[in-house]
């Protein structure tokens, strides 16, 4: 409990946290703005064009913002200690070491889960309000049918935060961890989409952003990602993204000279 309250205080007593939270929730406004522009364009279009017009689920698009911001929050939670040297004070206070990273994971995980959920549901409800029955009723799907996909997508924000924390613990460098995070999340998927079959589908299914739709069992209509995993396997892959780097980082933290 004391470790949690210490790490909670650490994270809330620096300015970067507030900025990253603000940016994360800015995604809701971004989503609403895109919805408003799309609705305007739809209303100005001819009936023939309207019949074929389609729109992506905006909340699943703008979630990239909280994903990245909370990923950076996770990275900074540990790399800022290495950059300033505070890590040596932290480890001197807690020589068993693993509780430091475990408490960081709990705090960062809770903050990002809450932020991700607010962002995904906030964007969804605003966009649904704005789009209404436009675009062949994309937003007329009942909420309960969308709920599994939305919840799983919100969860990816938490996965990004823990992935960032794990990468930060492994690399001990802000720049290094953010580079790997962006690479894993956005650069590799671009290349995977260009691979020949069956690699494209097999690897594409493993990308973080492909996992929520495989967990909910509602595949994207068109996507660069694959959809070959059953829900349970998709859950396992998502959990692996969150936990494997943190666990590896914990092992290194315990065995490496600080």
């Amino acid at each position, binding site marked *: 409990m*004391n*470790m949690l*309250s*210490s790490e909670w*205080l*650490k994270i809330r*007593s*620096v*300015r*970067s946290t507030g900025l990253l939270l603000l940016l994360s929730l800015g995604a809701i406004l971004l989503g609403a703005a895109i919805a408003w522009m799309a609705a305007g364009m739809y209303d100005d279009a001819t009936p023939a064009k309207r019949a074929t017009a389609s729109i992506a689920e905006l909340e699943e698009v703008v979630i990239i913002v909280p994903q990245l911001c909370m990923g950076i929050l996770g990275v900074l939670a540990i790399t*800022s*200690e290495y950059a*300033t*040297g*505070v890590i*040596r*004070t*932290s*480890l*001197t*206070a*807690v*020589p*068993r070491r693993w509780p430091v990273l475990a408490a960081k994971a709990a705090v960062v995980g809770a903050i990002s889960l809450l932020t991700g959920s607010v962002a995904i549901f906030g964007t969804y409800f605003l966009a649904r309000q704005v789009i209404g029955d436009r675009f062949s009723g994309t937003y007329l799907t009942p909420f309960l049918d969308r709920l599994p996909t939305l919840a799983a997508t919100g969860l990816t924000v938490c996965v990004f935060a823990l992935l960032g924390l794990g990468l930060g613990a492994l690399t001990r460098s802000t720049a290094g961890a953010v580079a790997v995070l962006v690479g894993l999340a956005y650069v590799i998927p671009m290349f995977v989409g260009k691979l020949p079959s069956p690699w494209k589908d097999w690897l594409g299914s493993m990308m973080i952003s492909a996992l929520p739709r495989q967990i909910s069992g509602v595949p994207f209509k068109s996507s660069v990602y694959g959809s070959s995993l059953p829900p349970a396997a998709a859950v396992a892959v998502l959990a692996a993204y969150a936990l494997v780097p943190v666990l590896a980082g914990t092992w290194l933290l315990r065995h490496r*000279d*600080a």
Partner: protein
Amino acid sequence: MVRCAADPPYPILDDVIRLHHLTKRYGDTLAVDDLSFTVEPGHVTGFLGPNGAGKSTTMRLILGLDTPTSGEALVNGRPYTTLRRPMAQVGALLDAGAVHGGRTAYHHLLCLARTNDIGERRVAEVLDLVGLTGVARRRVGGFSLGMRQRLGIAAALLGDPRVLMFDEPVNGLDPDGVRWIRDLMRSLAAEGRTVLLSSHLMSEMALTADRIVIMGRGKLIAEATIQELTTRYPTLEDAYLALTAGSVQFGAAR
């Protein structure tokens, strides 16, 4: 000071830092080489040696930050890493710069205090003790080196420990600060605490320390009282320069 050995293999030694054939190798470099000495309570032990002698590495080994290649460093008869609430037993200032510039002094100390079940009242106490109460709510980024040294000392004192280690706490301090550190070190030792203090300022060390441990190239060069050294040499500085003459790795010929 020595109680009966209740639970071997570590005899319980109160308030003592004991190094036993401590060795640390980084790749090809032998940073600490078969180092054995004991730091005892009740006086200030000065820890001297040229740059790169291995003083800071030795302190990191004592605090369990680095793992020894062989040998051991014991605090109160136990390896530091086995201590459960270590801040109540050992306090250390390794690097005054090791603070997050965006955090306030108060929050910096409170984060640390919470990990060892230390209350907010004690945080206020140590802030008062080091004279930072007035700036406690200011971000550390704006602190001078002297203020950071005081903050680092406050952190070391948080758990009211009996064993204290300070790595060059006088660096960057004004004469007031230097005098303050000297008085603080001497009063901590007078309370029966164990104080290990490293510094390059020989005249200051001569005024502060009672005993001296000198290291060079990872090895123990001398372990003596100030009195013993100043009887054999004109000043502590002369003693230091004579004893470390063969161990200076970086410096002009002399």
